[in-house]
Each structure stands twice: as C-alpha cells, then as structure tokens.
C-alpha cells in the first residue's frame, strides 16, 4: 500500500485547530505547509503573521514565525528579508490588516518590489473582533459597524487589492484564488508554490489573494458561507491571474 496523504509536519502534532467550523484559515495554512515541505524550505522559513484570526496560527505552526503589529507585516517582512536574503519570508494577513490599517505598508512594499511573498486572506470582514466592516466588505453586506449593510454613499466600495497593485510597476506576480472547492484548493496551492518559487528565484514581490469565508461573522454556517462566497464574493472578486511577469518574460 502506498501512503498518499499525511498531515503536514508544519502544524504542531499535538494541536487541534481552534478555528470556527468551515473556516478556510486551516486549509490555507495546511497548503502553505505542504508547499514548504515540497520545496524543502520548512527549516528556512520565517512567517510574518498579521493581527486578527491570522495571528491564531502562532499557536499551531511548528516553524519560525513573528507576529507583526496590526497592518505592519510587510514592513516587518522587509526588515527580515533585507537582512536575511536567503530565508524564505512570507506574510499572512487578513483584509483589515492588509488593506485597511496596513495599506501603506502593503502598497509600499509592493512598490519597492520587496522579494518576499504575501498570502492575503480576504473574507470581507473583521473576524476576530467580531464582524466589523472591512475595506473588502461587499456593498449591502451587513457588519456590526454597518448594521444596515455597506452603503457606498457612506462607506465607498470594496477595495480590490490585486487590481490596485496591478497599477504598480514592481510587483512580479498577483493572483486571486479561493478554497471553496477541491479544484480551487489545488489552484490555491499552485499559486502559493509559484509565489514562493518566485521569491527563491529572486523575482520580487508576489501576492496570492485568497477569497475566503467567515461563517461565524457572516451569520451563517459552513455550507451557507460557501454559497454566499460563490454567489457574491466571487462576483466582486473574480478569480484568476492578475499579473504574472514570468509569462511576459517567456513571451519575449
């Protein structure tokens, strides 16, 4: 018998995920761990965790990590990567962290073309603090700080980080994926692998935006959140490669 699946060693053996049922955080962290193992980089990796549910990974991860101040993950990663260019450095941030309080740090690092990778978990809401409106909250979507739903007149429109970054010259690779079905889980893993390989090859800034769910703060259950994600989130945040300079290089 051939063993075809085993739990990644990058998650502590004695820990059980404390994420809400149906939450995609544990899926993504598993994928990252598998990619690190496949690339032989587990012992050479520094993960910069954002604040919020992202930071909960601190309790589960088995490899080096640092918790950044809220929104500053890309600045912290800049400090680590610039002084340790051989270490694989990635940030793991939610939408409030990356696109609201950390907008300056995120875009500035992308604009400098920093040679690290960003894993961006976009579920359109603040999870840990209990469901407040995020920069990526959909129009009409209810939040504890927008009880009548996001109103463009007052709150503006959801921010599309991949597309905003696509205005910058430096970023090397930008892709938006999801983990709502097995096919997309595989695509997400491939995107993470590509982002990490870009870094190992010194190509510069890569970001994988993963459209995810928040059953708890969306006020639904695991299956309901998948339905909402597919019917609403993916319309606002279409999946696909937004930029891949390696394709441009091949085309030359």
């Amino acid at each position, binding site marked *: 018998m051939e063993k075809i699946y085993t739990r990644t060693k990058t998650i502590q053996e004695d820990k059980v995920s404390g994420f809400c049922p149906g939450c995609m955080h544990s899926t993504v962290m598993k994928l990252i761990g598998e990619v690190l193992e496949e690339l032989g980089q587990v012992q050479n990796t*520094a993960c910069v965790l954002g604040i919020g549910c992202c930071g909960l990974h*601190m309790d589960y991860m088995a490899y080096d990590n640092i918790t*950044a101040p809220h929104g500053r993950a890309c600045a*912290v990663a*800049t400090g680590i990567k610039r002084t340790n260019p051989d270490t694989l450095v990635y940030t793991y941030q939610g939408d409030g962290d990356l696109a609201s309080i950390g907008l300056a740090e995120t875009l500035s690092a992308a604009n400098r073309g920093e040679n690290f990778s960003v894993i961006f978990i976009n579920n359109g809401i603040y999870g840990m603090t209990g469901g407040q409106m995020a920069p990526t909250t959909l129009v009409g979507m209810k939040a504890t700080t927008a009880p009548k739903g996001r109103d463009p007149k007052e709150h503006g429109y959801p921010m599309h980080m991949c597309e905003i970054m696509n205005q910058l010259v430096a970023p090397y690779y930008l892709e938006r994926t999801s983990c709502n079905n097995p096919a997309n889980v595989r695509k997400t893993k491939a995107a993470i692998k590509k982002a990490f390989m870009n870094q190992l090859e010194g190509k510069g800034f890569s970001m994988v935006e993963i459209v995810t769910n928040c059953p708890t703060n969306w006020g639904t259950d695991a299956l309901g959140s998948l339905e909402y994600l597919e019917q609403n989130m993916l319309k606002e945040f279409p999946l696909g490669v937004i930029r891949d300079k390696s394709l441009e290089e091949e085309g030359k």
Partner: protein
Amino acid sequence: MSRVFMKGCEAIAEAAVRAGCRFFAGYPITPQNEIPEYFSRRMPEVGGTFVQGESEVASISMVYGAASSGTRAMTSSSSCGIALKSEGISYCASARIPMVYVNVSRGGPGVGSIQPAQMDYMQATKASGNGGFQMLVFAPSTVQEAVDMTYAAFDYADRDRNPVLILADGVIGTMMEPVELPPMRSDEEIRAIKENKRSWACVGHELDYAHRAWIEPGQWSTAVMQRTNEKAAALYESWEKDLRWEEYRLEDAELVIAAYGISARIARSAVNLLRQEGYPVGLIRPITVNPFPYKAFDQIDYRKCKAVLDVEMSIPAQFLRDVSIGVKDRCPITTCLCSGGNIMSRESIIEAAKKSLEA
C-alpha cells in the same frame, strides 16, 4: 585615536555603524534628517541595509523585523515621529527584541516646533508605548557622549534583549564638535554577534519544538503573559547596576542645579561662572534618565543646601518630577524653564540660581 569634526546626527550614525548596526530604517523629520541621510551613504559601504520607510510606523516595524532576525538594527526620529514609533517600540519590548533608537527631540506637543527642546522626558522615561514596559534611556550632553552611548547601546540592547533609547535633542543632533570615534567592529565580530542570537532569531530552524523561533509580542495564555511580564520586571529591577550620573562641585554647595542633556551642559558652565563670583553652586546630571539615579540626590549636604534648582527646556517641567522624588522634601526646589524652541540660556540659569540662593 584620531579626532574628527562631525555633526551630532552623523556622529551618532557612524557610531552605530561601528557598533555593528547593519540595518537602519527611518523617515524624514527635522532635526534628525542627517541620520538617515548618513546611513543611506554609509550602509552600502559596509554591506548593511538602509531603507527609507514609508512612515515612522513602518520604519520601526522594519527594525522590529530586522532585529528579530538577529541583526543589529536602529531607527531614529524626533518627538512627534517618535510618538508614531511607540507601537513598534512596545512590540520590541514585549517580544524582548534588542534594538536601538534615537530621539533627536524637538518642541511639542503636537507637531510642536522644529527647534531643540526637552519636551519628551515623560514619554521617554515613563511610557514610550502601551503596556508599562521600560528601557534603558541615556541622555547625552555632548556629541562625544552621544557617540559613546550609541556605541554602547547596542551591547546593552543585546545583553538585555530589550530596546535602548538615546534621548538627545536638536542641539546635540545639529551641532558640530570634535569627537573620537570608537573602533569599527570587524565583519567577523558582527557575524558572531548575529550567530549568538541564532537560537531565537526568526530566520528558519530545525522543525522541532525545542528549536523553532517564535517572536511573540503577546500571548494567548494569561499565565504565560503574566510570567513574561514578571521576567521583564525582574530585568528592569536589575538595572540598578547601570545607573549613571555626574556630580559636579557638590562638596560645599548651597545650591544644587539638577539638569540633564544639553541643559546640564549649559548649567555646568553657569556653575563655573557662579563659582567665580563666589556662589557655592553644584550640579547633578543624570546620565541614565531611566532608570533615574534618585540616590544621586542623597549626595547633597542638606544642612548646607538651600535649594535644588531644576533646569530643563520644558514647560511644564517634567524632569522636575523625578528630581522631586530624589530630593524627598529635604529642601525646596526652584525651577528655570524654557520652551518653544529657544535653547536654555546661561544667563537665565545664573539669574535663577542667584534668586534661589537669596530666597
């Protein structure tokens, strides 16, 4: 050792490079722009990294990252810029990350003025961020002292795994003086310093629980959080041995001036002139302002001393509060204060001293 003529900010930056600092991130603000500018020229020469951060907040976070990976790292700013850095400073203190930062302080509050001041005393010594952490805080009164303190600060930071603050001011930062620069640490020494931190540095480790590095500026477990804070408190208690201050002509003093930083240097000159006129005046100058050398004030002969004169470039007075704790009501305390950007004048100190003696 040869003496060179250097501006305070540039001398501080050079001292840091010589101490082995190989990462600097900062954001422009007057009167400390010469520090990042100097690093931007100097770092490439020594294989170090200079990053102009997009903000003070980002710059200190970059330093937090670099220092968490074992590199000697530094940032600098001035007053309102330092306030912005308080987030990252608190993270470094909580996660016990060694780093050095310099406040070339200016007027305040708010955007204040760009001229020299000592308006950040309470912030620097009591609460440089949330959470009640403490740091060694050194207050130079000459460019030479700023150089020596910066050089030593990296050793203190590494010894304690804690941030260290150099509390300078716009005079120290922008004036030029002859200085003796400390020796340049060799690449081997710098590599060894970084290697020593390898066990906890966030750069990748063996995949087992004994070796992995977690840089934790907070804790999910309340028990661990309390233990962490207890360990930090024990560290702060251990700093009694690091107390430094200068006593000048206290022996027969009927008036003792208390001042730090640039004010103390001007006060020292006032003491000399007052002595020439026959006034028995002395000076106590705290060199570490946190921890504060309260016991220095036990050296005063209170049978003779009529008053202690607090001299500082801050209105309202701030340093005064620590002086009061040191004096313990053993004599009256008078003040000589200025604020708003004017440098403390020797004449006003002399006048205040005479008035205090006559009262």
